[in-house]
């Protein structure tokens, strides 16, 4: 059932991420729905499931953009693993946790992928636009992650992956 919920939420988030426009005032940043899914699984599930979610989310993001295959998948896995190190120290149900991790992870992801793409000569942004893009990515991550966390948790509760009054963290 965990993988079924993961599949559904990945499809929904993929379509949303493609359809929502990039925002010019935020340097063209897109709402990071797929990264938020990866963060949800890294803060609530064991490493294997988290890596599977991160890989699928990254693979979808790469496939549906001009980013070479594997770049986002690799970075999502890396970020997911790094965030999962904090799993035992934070309360994933709290609103603050996804807001904080969403903002930080989105910022780090955007900086890393830009450096990677720029090194390959695929993109080249001016300093102003790049700055706005980084700020925008962090800001959108802070807004998007709590929403994705809330909806995925509700879906998990609905199908019985998680009890309504139970904490979802599965400690290894």
């Amino acid at each position, binding site marked *: 059932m965990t993988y079924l919920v993961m599949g559904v939420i990945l*499809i929904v988030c*993929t*379509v949303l*991420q*493609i*359809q929502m*426009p*990039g*925002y*010019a*005032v935020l*340097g*063209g*940043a*897109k709402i990071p729905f*797929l990264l938020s899914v990866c963060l949800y699984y890294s803060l609530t599930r*064991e*490493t*294997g*499931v988290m*890596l*599977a979610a*991160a*890989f699928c989310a990254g*693979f*979808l*993001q*790469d*496939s*549906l*953009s*001009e*980013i*070479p*295959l*594997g*770049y*986002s*998948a*690799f970075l999502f*896995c890396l970020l997911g693993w790094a965030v999962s190190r904090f799993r035992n120290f934070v309360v994933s149900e709290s609103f603050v946790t996804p807001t904080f991790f969403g903002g930080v992870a989105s910022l780090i992801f955007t900086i890393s*992928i*830009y450096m990677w*793409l720029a090194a390959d000569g*695929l*993109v*080249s*942004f001016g300093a*102003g*636009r790049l700055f*706005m893009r980084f700020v925008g990515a962090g800001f959108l991550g802070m807004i998007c992650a709590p929403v994705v966390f809330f909806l995925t948790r509700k879906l998990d509760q609905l199908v019985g992956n998680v009890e309504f009054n139970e904490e979802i963290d599965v400690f*290894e």
Partner: protein
Amino acid sequence: MRNNRGLISFVLVAVVVLLNLPLPVSMRVKSSARDSVAGYQNVWHLLVNDLSRTFSAFAGAKKHINQKDELFQQVANLEFRIVQLERFEEQNAELRKQLDFRKASKLELVLCEVVSRGGAGGWWQTITLNKGSEDGIEQNRAVVTRVGLVGTTINVAKNSSEVLLLYDSNCQVACRFSRTGSLGILRGAGMTLRGNPEMEMLLSANSPVVNYVRRDQQLIDGDEVVTSGLGGVYPPGLLVGSMKKLSLDAKELYYCVEIDPAEDMRELQYVFVVKEKSK
């Protein structure tokens, strides 16, 4: 625990494989993934766009009835013109045959609907179309509207294709000024944050620039720019835009000409992909 370790190893191996896939295989994998998502994308597009269109159609029913009558009239006129043009085409073919001319290139337009804008990453200025290789669309084909050039196809899956817009800095088009015949290379200039940028990225684009235009050319505001056909991607004669501003490049060797694109890409709903007519 053992299962978990197996899954971790599998994902790590998959990431390494993905990063090292040869380009043709990588393109094929991407195409398959795009095709898998294309259906959901179309459903979303149908839900959001078509429903809003349906509501607006109800709201302006009387206007649409009048429009329908006008369109009937137009169709009748166009059908009459097609009959005339077919006769001219036959005549033209006969004359070409008699004069032993090389056969004129035959191009065909494939009508496509824009289903999304900007891709999943937001790093490039692209749009996604609802048709792909199954409809005869190939990579590196010109994408036009009734007004002028829009961009070029870059990734083509079975049922969807991605178009790089003229505004993107990776888009380059060999073009020509119709009045003077001077050649140049048009390049997108990305988006702007100056002035009053629109919320959506694709609406806030800088004007594309034609570089490498010889300095001895007498260009005037409003001069039409069309594709030159050099390079083979774009057929010659497609309208790109008109001259807006003239300046010299950094080394003062050539003119840089800012262009006002013929097509306003803010409201793109339908576009045509240019393909070669199948025999």
